[in-house]
């Protein structure tokens, strides 16, 4: 197991180097530079000497390869660079914004599992019944509604029928004001959770149907086990693996920042930080955040693989 973990962590390195290279050089293909992006039209008023001094100050006077290595060496010590516009280190900005995104992700995943798994189970157990048709209809609708559409609909319903504006007021973290925090996050979480629950339901249903037709389930039934025990202990446990893969992919996506939802609900999370960094051409911030997100995705993938082994004793990573 330790060897497996070590190998997996080792395999992170080339992917992360690849990610950093892609982001670092892609962002330098954009016309203009960080100085123009920071100062806007005022950049045109800089004298040549001032421009050179600023470039030197930000390290932009060095060749791109050298800039990459300087940045790369910094990341190893946890220094992802400095955001010119925010006037803060990138690591600090990520630390400030990430908790919100993490909380939103956890809430959304819980909501999606609470909705998706029971409906998927019921649909599979009562295949082709009225319940199944309703369940499948639910998943079809859920899959066809993009999350920004659900968000727009939720805001519409809340504002028109309940006179509530979920996007109003400054964001309060959970530690500052738990009630206000949940009030602010619940609707974005419902939006994301609902959108995702359709995929969870679909995967649970198809995976359960496949497992329910297998010999070991038949054996369990013929042993005279109660149906509930057959379903929960035998079938569901085995049907979980594809569902967990799906959840892993989704968590990776959500931790990367639910861009549109954070934007619509005006939440200062990682997604919104990146959208703004992208439009303001904040080199260091985009690079640092992308690297952080890639690391998240890789870690989640690893955790998913480890969970497989915990759920299915046939899967073993022992060498």
């Amino acid at each position: 197991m330790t060897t497996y973990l070590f190998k997996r962590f080792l395999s992170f390195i080339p992917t992360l180097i690849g990610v950093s290279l892609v982001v670092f050089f892609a962002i330098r293909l954009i016309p203009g530079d960080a100085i123009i992006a920071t100062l806007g039209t005022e950049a045109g008023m800089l004298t040549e000497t001032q421009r050179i001094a600023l470039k030197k100050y930000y390290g932009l006077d060095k060749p791109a390869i050298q800039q990459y290595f300087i940045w790369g060496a910094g990341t190893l010590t946890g220094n992802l660079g400095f955001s010119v516009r925010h006037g803060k280190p990138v690591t600090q900005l990520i630390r400030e914004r990430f908790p919100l995104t993490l909380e939103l992700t956890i809430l959304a995943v819980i909501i999606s599992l609470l909705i998706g798994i029971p409906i998927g189970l019921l649909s599979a157990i009562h295949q082709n019944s009225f319940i199944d048709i309703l369940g499948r209809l639910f998943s079809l609708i859920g899959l066809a509604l993009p999350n920004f559409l659900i968000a727009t609909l939720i805001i519409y319903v809340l504002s028109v029928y309940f006179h509530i504006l979920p996007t109003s007021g400054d964001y309060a973290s959970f530690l500052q004001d738990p009630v206000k925090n949940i009030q602010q996050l619940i609707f974005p979480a419902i939006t994301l959770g609902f959108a995702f629950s359709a995929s969870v339901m679909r995967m649970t249903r198809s995976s359960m149907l496949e497992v329910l037709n297998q010999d070991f389930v038949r054996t369990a039934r013929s042993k005279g086990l109660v149906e509930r025990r057959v379903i929960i202990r035998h079938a569901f446990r085995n049907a979980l693996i594809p569902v967990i893969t799906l959840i892993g992919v989704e968590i990776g996506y959500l931790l990367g920042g639910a861009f549109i939802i954070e934007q619509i609900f005006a939440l200062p999370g990682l997604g919104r930080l990146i959208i703004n960094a992208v439009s303001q051409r904040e080199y260091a911030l985009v690079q640092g955040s992308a690297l952080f997100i890639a690391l998240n995705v890789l870690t989640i993938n690893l955790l998913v693989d480890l969970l497989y082994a915990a759920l299915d004793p046939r899967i073993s990573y022992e060498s």
Partner: protein
Amino acid sequence: MKAKTKDNIFIKLLSNPSGLIGIIIVTSYFLVALSYSFGLSPFPAAEQHVIDRLQAPSSKYLMGTDLFGRDIASRIMEGAKNSLYVALISVFLASVVGIFLGVISGFIGGHLDNLIMRIMDIFFAFPALLLALLVITVLGTGLNNAVLAIAIVYTPIFARVARGPVLAVKEMDFVQAGRGLGASSARLMLKHILPNILAPLIVQISLALSWSLLTEASLSFLGLGVQPPAASWGVMLSESRGLAERAPWLMMFPAIAISLGVLGFNLLGDGLRDVLDPRMRSRK
């Protein structure tokens, strides 16, 4: 013989409920987009009727008008054309490049396989929309850049989906026989392997069309895809925010259009999967 097989697939698809509904929705979608291209919309999509701003649906304006007095029905039609353009071209590019990389990678194997798949892993480490966002940042906003961004996002998926079956097919007797008869690698890949891995790829293409429709709408919603005054369902939905209380039709019609488009391609994909992959049939 080949034509007969194709007919069979089409007939099976028509007798599959998901496939049939999918075909009806997707065909209607194509017809709406084509009608706009042939100038059959009630009004030019960008034409402003200042006196008729924010009109509710009526016999003159079937789906009402927006803040600038533009006809929503005509804009929905232009949106269909633009989203279909983005979806078709981006998925075409992604599938051609992705399948090419996947087949080469799986067939040749060894270091090349390792290299191609590790590069694909780099792209998989980004959530799809973040990757699209980065590409748009580099290329700039606009319809064609959205096409490229979406194509880049979906290329690795096609590479991965194509590579798996190649590994299995290349070991089969008929490929080995072809190799024994002296067929070149290119011939083996094109004539022997590709036709035998098409089924999962066709399903993937249909699903990718629905994702690309969604991604285009998302990018346009964020102001990074189709640029106003050109119409896109994402842009229309974004413009409806804040006005939804006064004029709910501004939100309703693009919302229905996006959902139906995605639903259509999803159902078509499900139907194709049922027809092309008998193992999946028992799952439904």
